């Protein structure tokens, strides 16, 4: 084996191992955050018995689910029934492959006693696969995730599961468009599709949450719909559909859906951090952006701190997910469709038009691509935001009829 090939294997084993561990441990932690967080939002304590602060509760639940009997519904289509959780699980994890999670590490060239020489030329990007089509990969795979849900609903042979699966399809189609259009704006700003280029552009100018605030809001809402989280969890809808698409699942197959849901949550949070909050960028300093050519304490520190920055940004959005889930009630299905098609889609289309014009205008005016460019776009965003909020706020009252007061009808 050539030294380059060995270096390649070393680097990729490290990166895949790191990302996989990060996501899987992350899932356990996020479920813990969800359970304790929901409890705290409701003035309770939540699970706090298993392990310190209840941290091992989900490990115990996982063990329980592995030990449980696998049930097979008699009406189920066995092949698809087995395939569905695997599909949901894989797509949940795959998205993370293109997300850069730290600053690149310097190249290496060293020799070990028995294993021989290891070489990696050029900086090592901290992303499992720095795909040139990074961005399109995300759109493609994130919509594949719904197949797991639809197939689960179809193959269960249960009407509740089928209805859950159908709802997932309709919801995914409606919100995928808004998600895609909000990312078109990011694409306009970044000018290229790989996620590393999007991060580089944000380091060079401003975080896109300023340059494309409305796109961020649209992305967050669509991401909630995409991951089937409240207030968009109609495929599950306990009150109406038992538990929707995974009604017939038990034991580890159910756990797979559960893990997939939380893996998707982590990935979507990571995407929000990457697209709109500069990924692993540490704000107000260029220290984290220097490209190192040799190993030093500084290089490791740069890796660690940028990773921490990424982690903190991601954690914030995970918390927002939990916070929203335990605040907002579920939409009715027609409300969901109305929001998707009558609000999100026109707003997103108009916004793409406005931002495209703005970017073109800045380009023609010769504004240099640095913080001034970003702030100019932010100035465009402020009136747009006000317009959207005014539009959503007007004439949409919770009650339009006057109620009776003190037993007498008024108005």
């Amino acid at each position, binding site marked *: 084996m050539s030294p380059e090939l060995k270096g390649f294997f070393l680097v990729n084993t490290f990166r895949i191992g790191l990302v996989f561990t990060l996501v899987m441990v992350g899932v356990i932690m996020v479920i813990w955050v969800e359970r304790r967080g929901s409890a*705290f*939002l409701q*003035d*309770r304590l939540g699970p706090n018995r298993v392990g310190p602060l209840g941290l091992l509760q989900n490990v115990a639940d996982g063990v329980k689910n592995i030990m449980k009997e696998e049930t097979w519904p008699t009406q189920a289509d066995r092949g698809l029934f087995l395939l569905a959780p695997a599909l949901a699980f894989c797509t949940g994890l795959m998205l993370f492959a293109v997300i850069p999670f730290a600053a690149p590490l310097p190249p290496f060239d060293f020799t070990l006693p028995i294993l021989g020489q290891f070489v990696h030329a050029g900086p090592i990007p901290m992303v499992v696969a720095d795909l040139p089509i990074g961005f399109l990969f995300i759109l493609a795979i994130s919509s594949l995730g719904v197949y797991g849900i639809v197939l689960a609903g179809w193959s269960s042979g249960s009407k509740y599961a089928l209805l859950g699966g159908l709802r997932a399809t309709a919801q995914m189609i409606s919100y995928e468009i808004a998600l895609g259009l909000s990312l078109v704006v990011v694409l306009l700003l970044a000018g290229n599709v790989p996620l590393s280029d999007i991060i580089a552009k944000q380091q060079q100018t401003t975080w896109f949450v300023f340059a494309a605030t409305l796109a961020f809001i649209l992305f967050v809402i669509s991401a909630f719909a995409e991951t089937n989280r409240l207030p968009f969890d109609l495929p599950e809808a306990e009150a109406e559909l038992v538990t929707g698409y995974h009604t017939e699942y038990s034991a580890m197959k159910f756990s797979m859906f559960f893990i997939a849901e939380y893996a998707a949550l982590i990935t979507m949070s990571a995407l929000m951090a990457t697209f709109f909050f500069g990924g692993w960028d540490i704000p107000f300093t260029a220290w984290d952006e220097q490209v190192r050519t040799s190993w030093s304490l500084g290089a490791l520190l740069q890796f660690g701190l940028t990773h921490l920055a990424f982690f903190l940004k991601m954690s914030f959005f995970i918390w927002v997910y939990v916070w929203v889930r335990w*605040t907002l009630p579920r939409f009715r299905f027609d409300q969901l469709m109305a929001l998707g098609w009558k609000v999100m889609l026109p707003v997103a289309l108009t916004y793409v038009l406005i931002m495209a014009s703005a970017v073109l205008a800045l380009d023609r005016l010769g504004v240099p691509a640095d913080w001034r460019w970003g702030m100019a776009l932010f100035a465009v965003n402020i009136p747009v935001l006000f317009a959207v909020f005014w539009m959503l706020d007007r004439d949409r*009252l919770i*009650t339009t009829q*006057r109620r009776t007061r003190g037993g007498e009808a008024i108005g």
Partner: protein
Amino acid sequence: MAIGVKVVRRPDEGVSYLRATLKGMALTLSHLLRPKVTMQYPEQKSTADWSISPRWRGTHRMLTDEQGRAKCVACGLCPQICPANCIKLVPGEDEQGHRYPLIYEIDEFRCVFCGYCQEVCPEEAIHVGVHYENSEYERSRFVYDLERLCAQTHPVSTLWDPTDPKGE
């Protein structure tokens, strides 16, 4: 109102879904750091603002006299009044003509914890107790015999006093 019903005033104009959503988010977040109401049960059985009522009617207890004998005189009123028919009483009589229970058993599974046995008892012998931790490994253990009823140490219920209906 009798038990302090809180009437929430519903907004009837000028509130949009958007503002209601943001307001709701702020409200739930404000609950994050409020004091928690959870009682850590096995370790903590009462708190400053909650403890079990002295009127609680739980598993029974037979009081004893100074010689450690059950106060029961086997009059038969408690099995008579018991609506669940859960008390088994076989009376006996000693040489001095004192009646005492030969067998006194209460099936706690059948019992509906109405407390009539305590109310009807002329000797203040049988009582329902302020007690709620009753788990056993076998069903048969839920039939309490006289020895076990006498051995209970938990406080007895004060029941409901008609002259003091709120327990003040």
